[in-house]
């Protein structure tokens, strides 16, 4: 939902003036078109709270097609080829070797072109690494007299025999600049194996310890009859290019070939103030540019979201179990699980004897072994106080966790509900005078509820980590308002639909949807502003914050 009115940061000073002008535009539009259609109304609704203003929570990104990406790679290659007067294919191999770091490559290449060429596999190593101290191989490979002997026996004089497949009927052979000749079929099988099975774009010469890298045109000629594999090769190259560039990321949705460029999220520091939720052009392909949580985790920044998901993964089930099955020893605070029927507990650790029911010391129980009617005794009250204090942090976590989980669950349920509603709507369209556009209000409402529940979900994770204070209270006020609005709308969605009342229902749902949307924007906008202003303080150490 990018706004039509976009400003660069520099324009901030003239802001109010522009906003006024926009509103004038808006008015003019409406008077010109006296009966705005449903669709136009909804577009307006999107812009409601911050009309004509770029929202702080909206992070700029652009989408690159496969073709754009290839062009970006070519630009880099041409740049390097131009500087050093080398073939683009060579420049390309050098760039891959330097993980597409032009500056580093330029610097090193100026110093020692021969060394770099050998290192990157552009030219054969001057002295084949026969020495025992080849720094790069941490391996157990050893050059042995026998392996050179076997090599000798493999390459007999006379008609060419491929040293790999021993086929002497092969007439077509190929070799890289190192002149290690092999039959075309073996080359094809080797390149295919590298690309298909190993997912590797770098194919070196097949000869032992030869590090020369096959050029792209060599690969192409070898895979001439297998275009899909050559395409896969190009894809591997593109993936490598993207993985080396912090500003780029592939759309994580399956089968999607788009790449997203988001320069704002390229630095780690920026991630303490922005949440780079982007999409690849397809609204449904929404993802976080900076972290592997595929959800839209606004309004909580990546690093804290990560803390939360980690905590939930580690703790939530365990915490629930501890809460319902254990108590703490009133003396040493060890967590105790009751595994027998008797209420007379003896702490394994400190040997303290107490009553499971009232938590008071057992000594006061006299002979009432199996029942406890001493709930109000002073000592047991104190013991339970201590107990509840130690439980408070667990309770606190579960408070936030359960709400977090509940919004997720509810969001799913509302989608299920919609599936049923949709059918009904289609029927109504056939049986009543309603048009297709008029029955779309449910879809819009459900989508909005889903979006808002995602926001709400993460507001609970955020609130868990926010430091107590006015800022947190204001945040929770916004959260409460959104939650209330969302619950109201959700309830409306569950109302029975029939032809008589649909008109009224539609009005109600549409109004509420607009309101909910506004509340969601307020939460997102305020939290995004809060990051920019440094308003949010955490109750736990967070990377990038003091």
């Amino acid at each position, binding site marked *: 939902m990018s706004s039509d009115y976009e400003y660069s940061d520099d324009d901030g000073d003239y802001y109010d003036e522009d906003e006024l002008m926009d509103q004038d535009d808006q008015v003019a539009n409406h008077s010109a078109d006296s009966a705005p259609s449903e669709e136009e109304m909804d577009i307006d609704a999107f812009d409601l709270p911050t009309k004509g203003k770029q929202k702080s929570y909206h992070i700029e990104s652009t989408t690159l097609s496969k073709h754009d990406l290839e062009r970006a790679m070519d630009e880099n290659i041409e740049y390097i080829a131009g500087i050093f007067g080398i073939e683009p294919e060579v420049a390309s191999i050098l760039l891959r070797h330097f993980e597409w770091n032009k500056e580093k490559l330029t610097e090193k290449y100026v110093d020692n072109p021969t060394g770099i060429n050998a290192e990157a596999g552009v030219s054969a190593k001057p002295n084949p690494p026969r020495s025992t101290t080849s720094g790069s191989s941490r391996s157990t*490979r050893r050059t*042995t007299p026998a*392996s050179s002997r076997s090599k000798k026996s493999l390459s007999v004089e006379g008609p060419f025999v491929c*040293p790999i497949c021993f086929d002497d009927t092969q007439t077509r052979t190929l070799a890289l600049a190192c002149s290690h000749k092999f039959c075309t079929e073996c080359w094809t099988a080797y390149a295919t194996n590298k690309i298909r099975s190993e997912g590797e774009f770098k194919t070196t010469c097949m000869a032992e310890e030869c590090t020369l890298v096959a050029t792209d045109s060599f690969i192409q000629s070898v895979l001439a009859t297998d275009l899909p594999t050559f395409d896969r090769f190009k894809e591997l190259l593109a993936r490598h290019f993207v993985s080396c560039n912090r500003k780029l990321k592939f759309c994580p949705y399956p089968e999607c070939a788009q790449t997203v460029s988001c320069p704002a999220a390229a630095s780690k520091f920026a991630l303490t103030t922005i949440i780079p939720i982007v999409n690849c052009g397809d609204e449904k392909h929404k993802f976080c540019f900076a972290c592997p949580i595929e959800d839209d985790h606004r309004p909580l920044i990546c690093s804290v979201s990560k803390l939360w998901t980690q905590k939930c993964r580690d703790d939530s089930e365990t915490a629930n179990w501890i809460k319902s099955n254990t108590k703490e020893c009133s003396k040493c605070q060890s967590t105790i699980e009751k595994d027998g029927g008797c209420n007379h507990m003896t702490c394994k650790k400190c040997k303290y004897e107490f009553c499971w029911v009232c938590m008071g010391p057992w000594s006061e129980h006299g002979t009432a072994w199996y029942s406890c009617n001493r709930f109000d005794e002073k000592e047991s009250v104190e013991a339970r106080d201590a107990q509840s204090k130690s439980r408070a942090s667990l309770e606190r976590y579960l408070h936030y966790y359960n709400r977090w989980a509940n919004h997720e669950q509810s969001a799913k349920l509302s989608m299920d509900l919609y599936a049923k509603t949709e059918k009904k709507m289609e029927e109504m369209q056939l049986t009543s005078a309603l048009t297709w556009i008029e029955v779309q209000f449910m879809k819009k409402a459900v989508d909005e509820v889903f979006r808002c529940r995602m926001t709400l979900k993460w507001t609970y994770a955020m609130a868990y980590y926010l430091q107590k204070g006015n800022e947190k209270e204001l945040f929770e006020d916004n959260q409460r308002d959104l939650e209330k609005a969302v619950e109201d709308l959700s309830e409306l969605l569950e109302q029975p639909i029939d032809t008589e009342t649909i008109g009224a229902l539609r009005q109600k749902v549409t109004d509420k949807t607009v309101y909910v949307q506004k509340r969601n924007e307020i939460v997102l906008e305020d939290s995004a502003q809060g990051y920019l202003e440094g308003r949010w303080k955490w109750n736990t150490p967070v990377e990038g914050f003091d």
Partner: protein
Amino acid sequence: MALAHTRRLNKELAEIHAGTPVGINLVNADTFEKWLFTIEVMGTSEYEAKKFLLMFRFDNTYPISAPAVQFVVDDTHKAPVHPHVYSNGHICASILGREGWSPVLTVIAVCITIQSMLASCKKKEPPLDNDRYVPRAPENPKKVSISLMVSPLLA
């Protein structure tokens, strides 16, 4: 490649029958799926007078990709204790991996590499991560994910 695979193994087998390096002996090569060799380290070494059984398994990607090679560990055979050999017989050697394998390498070349790997061993100890690796390792060493076999290379 199936034809090339058979032709290649046939050729290698013919060479093996003509003679193998000292300390390396063919035990069984009845099929083109599995070959067995005994490996002995000649001269003075940590493994003096010990014989190990080495198993090669080939799929039809051989020799384009490396064979699966491991020491046999059963009631009568043990894997050598070596920083690059896990107690289940799996071997960590670069020539058996994607990066280090070259299709011109042969079964005998692999045997020699492993023989010299044993010969040059100065201290008999298992890989650092042996206890972590062995319970999680698949039966076939070629199916190991790279991340699992890591510490011997650093050791």
